[in-house]
């Protein structure tokens, strides 16, 4: 069996969610003695090759000198590379979620989005109905998967010198297809919600957008954390949509999730209950968030957060 993994890079570094799919692929490969190869498309891949070799990926198929992302071009390059693969894995990122279904359709493969566990080479666990239900799904034949970030650990280090196979990138992209005109500056220096080990998340209990900014933001920055928000504060316009955690926002699985002034509506819990450690800070002892918190602090966030900031 052959497993192909698409590794996404940013500033010539493999993204965390891509490193996690190396772990996922190695898990399947161990059971079946499968071969693994990575696919990388970037303009400068020398750093990336070294990094991938560090984790014991034996073969890298790469397409160099492509300066900007274009879905149809990328899909063609990947399709050519995975013709003989049985399982093709993508990170559940914006580009991964765009490319995976295109590859699935081009390969007449089954597509299984947002996998949260691997049972065997054709049985996978997914969460559906806003994380309220977990399903085991099975398919035969060729399979294309995306894997939710934060589910698998980083791969173990096992340095090897991978074999490099250059794949054709002479495919001319269609003129009428989307061109990435520009990438505008990073909105913030904080980690992305789906990539972060720690998330500090604020709700209505923070009181105001100003309080959110003066309490949640510095705490996140001190911890190197991403900022999350409840639906209530996003709907109220206190925080941007892409910070929303929950059923109509993002599903996150960080190592540590600190919920500040969040009561814990079911739609919020759906998005973060798979975090490894949940800390909740709330004045209301009966808030539903305390039912799933590993550590619940009953108290006033306006007093606790400043003291916490001083002690960190």
């Amino acid at each position, binding site marked *: 069996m052959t497993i192909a993994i698409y590794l996404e890079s940013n500033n010539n570094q493999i993204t965390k969610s891509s490193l996690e799919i190396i772990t996922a692929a190695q898990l399947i490969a161990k059971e079946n003695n499968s071969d693994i190869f990575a696919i990388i498309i970037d303009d400068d891949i020398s750093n990336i090759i070294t990094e991938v070799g560090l984790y014991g990926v034996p073969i890298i198929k790469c397409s160099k000198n492509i300066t900007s992302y274009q879905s149809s071009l990328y*899909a063609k390059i990947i399709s050519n590379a995975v013709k003989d693969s049985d399982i093709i894995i993508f990170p559940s990122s914006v580009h991964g979620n765009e490319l995976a279904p295109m590859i*699935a359709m081009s390969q007449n493969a089954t597509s299984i989005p947002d996998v949260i566990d691997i049972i065997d080479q054709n049985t996978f666990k997914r969460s559906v109905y806003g994380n309220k239900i977990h399903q085991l799904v099975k398919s035969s034949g060729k399979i294309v998967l995306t894997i939710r970030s934060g589910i698998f650990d980083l791969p173990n280090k096992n340095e090897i010198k991978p074999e490099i196979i250059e794949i054709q990138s002479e495919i001319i992209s269609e003129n009428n297809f989307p061109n990435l005109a520009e990438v505008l500056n990073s909105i913030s220096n904080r980690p992305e919600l789906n990539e972060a080990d720690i998330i500090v998340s604020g709700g209505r209990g923070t009181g105001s957008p100003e309080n959110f900014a003066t309490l949640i933001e510095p705490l996140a920055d001190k911890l190197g954390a991403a900022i999350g928000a409840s639906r209530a504060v996003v709907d109220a316009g206190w925080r941007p949509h892409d910070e929303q955690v929950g059923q*109509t926002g993002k599903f996150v699985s960080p190592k540590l999730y600190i919920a500040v002034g969040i009561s814990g509506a079911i739609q919020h819990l759906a998005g973060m209950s798979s975090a490894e450690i949940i800390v909740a800070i709330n004045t209301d002892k009966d808030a539903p968030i305390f039912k799933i918190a590993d*550590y619940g602090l009953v108290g006033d966030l306006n007093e606790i957060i400043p003291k916490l900031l001083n002690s960190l």
Partner: protein
Amino acid sequence: MNIIVILSIVPDTETKIQLNNKNVEMDQSTEWIINPYDEYAIEAAIQFKEKHGGEITSISFANGKEEKPIRKAMAMGVDKSIIIETSSPLSSISTEYMNAISTQLKSSNADIIFTGKLVTDTNNNFIGPSVAQILNLPIITEISSIHFSDNILTVTRNNAGQVEKYTSSLPILLTTDKSLNTPRYPKLPDIMKAKKKTITRVSYDINENSPQITIIKSEFPQEKDSGEIFEGTSEELVTILIDVLTNKEKIL
């Protein structure tokens, strides 16, 4: 402009899910709604029509409960609807779901197609790109802004903290994210007008040879063991928190 929206019909996201023999079961009280992310697609289609003219057609599947949400979409501003009927219900995660939509789109001469970035019940964000691939259409997912002038479409999307700006020509398929717009509430006269709009039902023969996913088990996620709740002064609470995160969890 020929504007199409692909709408999935899903149980209300507040629905309490029940399991019967490891199958997800919806009872009579379940309210069926337009997939929340598809509402942004409807709003985007309406705004596009307001600026550039044309007609909006929706494509959905019959599940016996589709009429009410489809009428709501029509009250918002969809002009006419196509409902695909199949001999057995198609899961929105199946390849045949994408094939059936694509078959309808093939004969539609669409200039621009909108659908939500994710279908909430099957947690499926593959529909847009799958359909685009089948029809060899350009695709941009999760858009957060859209502008069209001089035959050039400009859209942006957020990707890992960066904003990507794309240009393209039509036709194109776009999937919509929450930050794109605020879906309008239908007004009473529009709700009345929607009752007279045309719904066309078409049938689709399921190809049993398409790749299939079998659900072998549905279960509630394991409940977390209840944790420790601390009360006390804020100094005490901060000391406890730093202690457990540093010494017990070793995360700080």
